[in-house]
């Protein structure tokens, strides 16, 4: 750094300069020009993408929770269809099966489903007219112990030992379907989350390139004054990371408001049993600004270094 006092220039009377009285500018403006005209639009786009990503993340979480709940519920129950032997009524056979199953280890409770209960279940679907003439299976509903549930094989053996002709359905088929459906929904929601993140990264990379093109003169000046490519890239990284963090916060806040409203409307069970929203889901939204800023940092770095690197050797 030059010190004019060292130069001892004849025309410069340092003693009269009164350097202590010099006003030093406060605060330092950024080395890049103020935000370009398109940046508010970019912020809007990223906010919308973050909003969608937040919804996708909560949807994935809710679908996963619903699937696990259903699977747990299905896994804790079994249904037994009893076929009465000759000389035995269906109700008698069902009652005997229920009594047999109630004594099996891993069974919490077993109860024969009466014809009236079965008709009550079917009435909404079939109406009253056909129910009296409809042959209904004789069913036993079994509630299994949560910690050590009895298996379908164990139940079948107990029924066979009691001389009962019965079929045990432990709902494994349904449980598998539910789990597969939930996994699919979670995967799709995750893909939607990644797609929005990629779209945000692409928008930021495009904006970085546009910024580099528009600020060619500024970049040349910085470069000619000794700025490294990394320093120039960092200027863009910092700008877009801050922009993305702000947009991420806005998107997350809007998503939180919407989800909170839906949760409020839906009560403790959430708006839908298929996607039960919990208050805790809102915590999932909190990293959104940080994630958006990280995506912006990486995208801007990649784009800036690519553009600056293409000028390699030209200075």
């Amino acid at each position, binding site marked *: *750094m030059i010190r004019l006092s060292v130069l001892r220039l004849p025309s410069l009377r340092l003693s009269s300069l009164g350097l202590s009285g010099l006003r030093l500018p406060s605060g330092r403006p950024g080395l890049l020009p103020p935000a370009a005209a398109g940046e508010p639009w970019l912020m809007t786009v990223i906010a919308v993408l973050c909003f969608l990503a937040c919804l996708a993340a909560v949807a994935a979480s809710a679908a996963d929770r619903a699937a696990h709940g259903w699977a747990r519920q299905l896994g804790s129950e079994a249904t037994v269809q009893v076929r009465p032997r000759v000389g035995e009524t269906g109700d008698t056979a069902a009652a005997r099966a229920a009594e047999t199953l109630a004594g099996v280890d891993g069974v919490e409770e077993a109860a024969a489903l009466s014809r009236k209960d079965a008709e009550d279940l079917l009435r909404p679907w079939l109406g009253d007219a056909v129910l009296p003439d409809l042959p209904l299976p004789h069913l036993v509903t079994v509630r299994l112990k949560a910690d050590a549930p009895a298996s379908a094989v164990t139940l079948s053996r107990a029924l066979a030992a009691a001389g009962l002709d019965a079929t045990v359905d432990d709902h494994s088929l349904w449980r598998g379907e539910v789990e597969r459906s939930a996994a699919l929904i979670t995967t799709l929601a995750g893909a939607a989350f990644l797609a929005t993140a990629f779209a945000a990264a692409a928008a930021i990379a495009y904006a970085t390139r546009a910024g580099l093109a528009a600020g060619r003169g500024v970049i040349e000046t910085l470069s000619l004054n000794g700025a490294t490519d990394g*320093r120039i890239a960092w200027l863009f990284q910092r700008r877009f990371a801050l922009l993305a963090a702000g947009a991420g916060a806005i998107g997350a806040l809007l998503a939180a408001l919407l989800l909170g409203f839906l949760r409020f409307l839906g009560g403790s069970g959430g708006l839908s049993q298929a996607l039960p929203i919990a208050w805790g889901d809102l915590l999932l939204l909190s990293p959104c600004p940080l994630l958006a800023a990280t995506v912006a940092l990486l995208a801007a770095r990649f784009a800036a270094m690519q553009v600056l690197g293409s000028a390699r050797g030209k200075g």
Partner: protein
Amino acid sequence: MPSSPASAVETTATPETVRLSGVGFGYAGAPDVLRDVNLILPRGSFHFLTGPSGAGKSSLLRLLTLAERPRKGTIRLFGADVTQIERRDIPAFRRRMGVVFQEFHLLDHLSAFENAALPLRLTHQREAAYAADVAEMLKWVGLGDRMDALPPALSGGEKQRLAIARAVITRPGLIVADEPTGSVDGVMAEKLLRLFQSLNRLGATVLIASHDQALAERSGARVLRLDRGRLAPTERAAA
């Protein structure tokens, strides 16, 4: 003087700040504007570079500032061969230079103070450490009351003085100036010349491209003359 650049390019102690050997240069798709240029600027020397418009003065300065690469020949700066220098190594050399551009290259969104302090800021120095020096330099070039002004509000002469203040604020080892007095009056031109001479006396190598033959002659410096891309034999200006 700034410390040695943290660069992969080794520099060696040499009595020459600049050495061009058989340098030819032309812009893409165009014929050579510099032909077989041989030039040595010893450390601590002071040269004027003159010649008619289109002679290649600005191109020669662009080569020295590593903004362009030669088609032929070699360029050595501070003892290091920079002919095929990697882009990542360029900033370290530029921090040892002070360059005054014909187009000024000021940042319009920064104040005069911030523009003058730019090279210091780019080396991560704290503002408190350099603020007084920058302010003093701006005062000296006559911009003491314009420190907060943005470049668009400055006259051509003020911009030129600001560009010079920025170029010399780091007390560089090599000062390259393209028409540094083209937009200022005679009094200020003499004053700026004295600034360059003072820095030269402190050890800086100075090369000034100028149309102002009279100023070159008054400076007492050696005068290099470029004509149609070729460097004429060195002569010393009349004192």
